[in-house]
């Protein structure tokens, strides 16, 4: 039990939540607009790589962050174009993005930085300690606080603004939205690209938020855990965050219990098992947006 009262466990739970919650909320934006997105993993990798690369080239981690996020947005825009304009199969496209991003980042790492990895003098984003909140909020990446703000802002945006309502409308019933005079394609582009930028921010956190380097496939499947968190969180920003918190806790607990007789591999299964149970309606039913994954041809 002493494990659970150790503030280190809770600090690392929060630290592990960030790279899950950001892509999970990103996926929520995309799927609420009606575009199935399993490409979070790949977009995160792009964000992580270009975050480091631009941080090194410009000497400013903040420029690295902005440009890394923009590169993620660019990849998401290409994905969106094929999914929306070309009506391509969104799951297959997502796979293509993941394979492409994994290959491209590995390839660029080796051609631009050689086989020794990214330069050790790459600057990283600052760590911030909130005074008075104890060791849990001590020495956390600044992106943790950004992430917490994003949870609140995206909830407000999706559920309390006109644009948010419109994005959700094209994900539920694009024909009705179109009839009401909304531009379905444009709203879907917004959802996918904003979502991609949030996923890329999750990647930036991994590379220059908590480290200052990039490694091949450093996201290590987090994009897929984020997908699980998005579903378990019922396609809402707050739900995605809470699910990410739970999954982050499972990961942190696995690390804390290492060498204490509990297999970290078995603990790692928790997110996936919970997601299947949630989809099967055994742990709270998760239903995707009605038009999720269905391409739309505008009426003339």
């Amino acid at each position: 039990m002493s494990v659970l009262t150790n503030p280190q466990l809770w600090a690392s739970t929060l630290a592990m939540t960030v790279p899950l919650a950001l892509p999970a909320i990103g996926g929520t934006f995309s799927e609420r607009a009606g575009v199935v997105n399993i490409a979070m993993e790949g977009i995160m990798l792009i964000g992580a790589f270009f975050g480091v690369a631009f941080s090194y080239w410009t000497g400013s981690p903040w420029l690295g962050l902005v440009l890394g996020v923009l590169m993620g947005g660019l990849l998401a825009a290409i994905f969106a174009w094929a999914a929306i304009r070309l009506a391509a199969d969104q799951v297959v496209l997502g796979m293509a993005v993941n394979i492409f991003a994994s290959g491209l980042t590995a390839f660029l790492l080796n051609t631009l930085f050689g086989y020794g990895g990214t330069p050790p003098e790459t600057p990283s984003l600052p760590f911030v300690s909130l005074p008075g909140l104890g060791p849990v909020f001590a020495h956390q990446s600044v992106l943790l606080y950004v992430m917490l703000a994003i949870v609140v802002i995206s909830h407000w945006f999706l559920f309390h603004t006109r644009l948010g309502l419109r994005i959700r409308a094209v994900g539920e019933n694009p024909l009705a939205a179109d009839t009401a005079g909304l531009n379905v394609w444009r709203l879907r582009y917004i959802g996918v690209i904003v979502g991609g930028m949030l996923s890329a921010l999750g990647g930036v956190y991994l590379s220059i938020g908590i480290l200052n380097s990039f490694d091949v496939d450093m996201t290590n499947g987090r994009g897929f855990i984020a997908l699980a968190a998005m579903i378990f969180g019922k396609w809402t920003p707050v739900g995605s965050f809470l699910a990410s918190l739970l999954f982050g806790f499972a990961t942190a607990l696995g690390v804390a219990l290492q060498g204490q007789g509990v297999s970290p591999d078995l603990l790692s299964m928790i997110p996936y098992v919970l997601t299947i149970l949630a989809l099967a309606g055994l742990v709270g039913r998760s239903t995707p947006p009605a038009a999720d994954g269905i391409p739309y041809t505008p009426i003339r």
Partner: protein
Amino acid sequence: MLASVVAILIGAVIAAVLGFNPLAAYGALVTGAFGTSMALSSTLAGAVPLALAGLGVAVAFRAGLFNIGAEGQYWIGVIVAVWLGYHLTGLPGWLHTLVCVVGATLAGGLWGGVIPGLAKAYRGAHEVITTMMMSYIAIYFGQYLIAAGGPMHAPGYNAQSPQIVKDAWLTVLLPPQLTTAVFFAIGAALVVWWGTFHTTVGFRLRAVGANPHAARYAGISVPVYTVLALGLSGMLAGLAGGVQVLALDHRLMWGFNTGYGYTAIVVALMARNHPFGVLLAALFFSALSTGGQNMQMVSQLPSSLTDVLTGLIVFFVAAERIVPLTIAWYRRRRGARAQVASAREGGR
């Protein structure tokens, strides 16, 4: 085919921009895949698990289902084949091999069919998500089994299982890697082809894939065929794992040869789900991977370029409408130009 040509051209441009000679690099890739008997052996051997798992993915696609979790079913097949491979002793070699292969096949079928199949058929849970989640569960389960203290951990420092009894190994045909496993791939392709196009079950499966509503009115039980298609798909992926571990690694461990289950999806897509196309596509992607390593050694161009190519191929296969759209755009432009020209002539 067009997709791969375009992807290869883009790859050449990327290589050229970064100052490499694309012709030399691709030359090294081809030599590395087919140039020597060793290369040929590796390419053919690598194509076997891709073909088997690719056939599995294709069978599910035929029923309109996307089995994205072939990787997990593959590993369940490996786990069961290895467990049977070192627990059973005293069987004649051929029988032992057969038991391992059948066990792996059934296990893959159960893993892919039962939970994702029933969840889809009766609760509407999307199979893309459930098979993907099952895949991760399988991989973590395998890691748990062979980690220190795990039930299949072999004594020693490395995280690996004991070795399968030697008598059960598949026979090497062309050293170093090509074994009798290749017959499983060819045989499975024939069976899947016959089953898909010449049996009632295959016809019904395709009917469910083409139009589930029409299939239901025709009296076909859509839930049964959903579970069946995912089960058959898992069986082939499990078979891929069983055959591969009996041919090469002979034990459960996490090496460099993972990811067959994911590439298998690409294989099925490129083959447009035709069993014989799957064999060719498997050969293509195996050659890309084997040759890519040679390319890296000879021309210093990182072998990850082959992943970039694969990603581009999948993108262009998915975005097939890019072709008619481009043609339409070109025609419109030409049409507009012709109009302008005729307007000018009319004005004269």
